[in-house]
């Protein structure tokens, strides 16, 4: 991450500037997904992005999470340009700076709750005992004290989503990117997950970017954006 750009921005924020992204549907036709998107997510806050299906919300999130490369534009993490990092550095950044939460929680069903949560820690070389301790405490904080050693597939939907959130937070990331994290939950669980994200954003000083269809949750966030046809509006 040596491409430092000293633009004026809040310290530790996650920012995208004039971001374009497109892909070829077949061999000839090119579909433009993002058309010059600019936004900034501050640490300690929840930034929500709402919009209809197919407008490019998730793609924007994957670009911010370094899962894809933009056609043009900049992605800045703590004022450093990261869009052109090598695959190896992007992998390290995903492990150490970014946490993901997906709609279908995406746990590895062969592993227990604890084993799922500790994966990012073990990946970055944390000692197994310490990783177990940190992961257990986090699961405890999220109300899963008695489910630590339960296989992921034996947890309820809400519990699985909390385990996924614990996994995304375990490495103390700067940025938490949540793609429809409540899309598969009922109203009560959705509100609980949102409050949990808000609490974590404030407690751990994380910039949370929340992609959601839920208008109610979007309105509760600190900053609200809307997307339509690859463009973003405040």
């Amino acid at each position, binding site marked *: 991450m040596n491409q430092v750009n000293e633009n004026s921005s809040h310290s530790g924020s996650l920012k995208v500037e004039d971001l374009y992204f497109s892909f070829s549907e077949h061999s000839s036709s090119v579909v433009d997904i993002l058309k010059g998107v600019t936004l900034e997510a501050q640490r300690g806050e929840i930034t929500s992005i709402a919009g209809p299906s197919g407008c490019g919300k998730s793609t924007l999130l994957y670009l911010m999470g370094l899962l894809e490369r933009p056609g043009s534009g900049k992605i800045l993490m703590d004022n450093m340009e990261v869009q052109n990092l090598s695959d190896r550095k992007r*992998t390290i950044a995903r*492990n150490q700076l970014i946490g*993901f939460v997906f709609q279908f929680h*995406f746990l590895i069903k*062969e592993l227990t709750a604890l084993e799922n949560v500790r994966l*990012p820690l*073990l990946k970055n070389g944390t000692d197994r005992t310490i990783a177990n301790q940190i992961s257990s405490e986090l699961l405890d904080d999220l109300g899963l004290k008695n489910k630590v050693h339960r296989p992921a597939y034996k947890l309820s939907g809400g519990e699985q989503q909390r385990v996924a959130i614990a*996994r995304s937070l375990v490495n103390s990331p700067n940025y938490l990117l949540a793609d429809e994290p409540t899309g598969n939950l009922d109203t009560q669980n959705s509100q609980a997950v949102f409050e949990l994200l808000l609490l974590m954003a404030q407690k751990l000083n994380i910039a949370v970017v929340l992609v959601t269809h839920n208008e109610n949750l979007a309105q509760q966030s600190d900053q609200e954006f809307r997307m339509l046809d690859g463009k973003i509006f405040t």
Partner: protein
Amino acid sequence: MLCLEIAWRFVIARKRPMILSLLGIVFGVSFFVITQAQTSGFEQFFIRTILGTNGAIRISDQFQDPLGTVQKSGKDGKVKFIFHSREDALYQEGVHQPDLVRVALMDYPEISGVSEIIEGTGILHTGSRKKTVQINGIRWVDHLQASDLNGQIIQGTIDQFASDQMGALLGSRIFSRLNIKVGDRIMLQGGTGTIHLRVCGVFETGVSQIDKNRIYLHMGNARSFLGHSAGGSIFQVALNKPELAPELSQQLQNVLNHRAVSWQEREKVWLDVFKALRVSSGITVSCILLLSGLGIFNVFAISVIEKTRDIAILRSIGFSQTDVSAIFLWQGAIILFAGILLGSFFAGLGTYLISIIPLRIRGIFSTDSFVVNWDLSHYLLASCIALIFVSVATWIPARRASRIEPAKIIRETI
């Protein structure tokens, strides 16, 4: 270690396909080792038999080469072209100047024993029965150095033969055909007349042609009976390393101007048969490993499809493409390692069980049970073949897994 841990969890979570893959390796490795142990067992036994009976090298007729050797030398003095022609060579029966040849042979450090043998034929009479035999006149002390005669004696002893100047050792099938006992007097006719001998022992080489035709006499008796007071003999040579026989026999032939034949050349037909059997069974059984490799490829290819979502998760939390590959390669390694371990165990057990199956063979060698060869190289070879098949079978799916684009999978799942 983290990738190995995840691989292990993936393996134990998919018990049925993994056990089927494992069984393929286990069967492949064990069948490979067992068939190799049998074919090479019989081959080794045959080689031991012929080395113990006829030695590693036999030196027979002297030849004179009227054309000599044609060779072309370069300007630097180095030989560029050499051609040995034996087409018009004149052969003289037997070894010329045997005492000098013996001394020369004993100077070779590779040679562990030299036995001079005078050969001829005669007819054995017991009064009621007779049998044409091939006479081998030997100096027993020398012959024990160049053969396994002492170990081949099944009745009587070599000491009885050594102490009786008119003694004879008979092949086992001559002995049973003539219906005599050790200690009986027999008569040998032919050559220069008749001599009376006493049966001092019976030997069995396992090679039927030898057991039903050969008798051993003392050199002096044989010479006087056959009318060769000197010369006319051949040499049987034993080596410390019998596998060096072809090179050494060629060298001896060039140096001594006597025909020298190695055991590999002498028994080429049988050795080729054994080799063909060994290669054929190896190829056949390797097919089991190939099929199990295809099975593993199938299992892992499906596994990659089933695990695309997990791969996407792992990539999103900081696992690299190499890590994802490693997870699938480790799964293959676990199956391979367990397969080789279990396969080797069952191979050892199977080989032992086969070795105690009664099987009476008389012909090119003599045995009353299956002969097996306990050779670590069979296990290593089977493991190497399994390693190659499993590596290819897992590498392709692992490579495919590493190339999965996480964003695409996550987007398609949603």
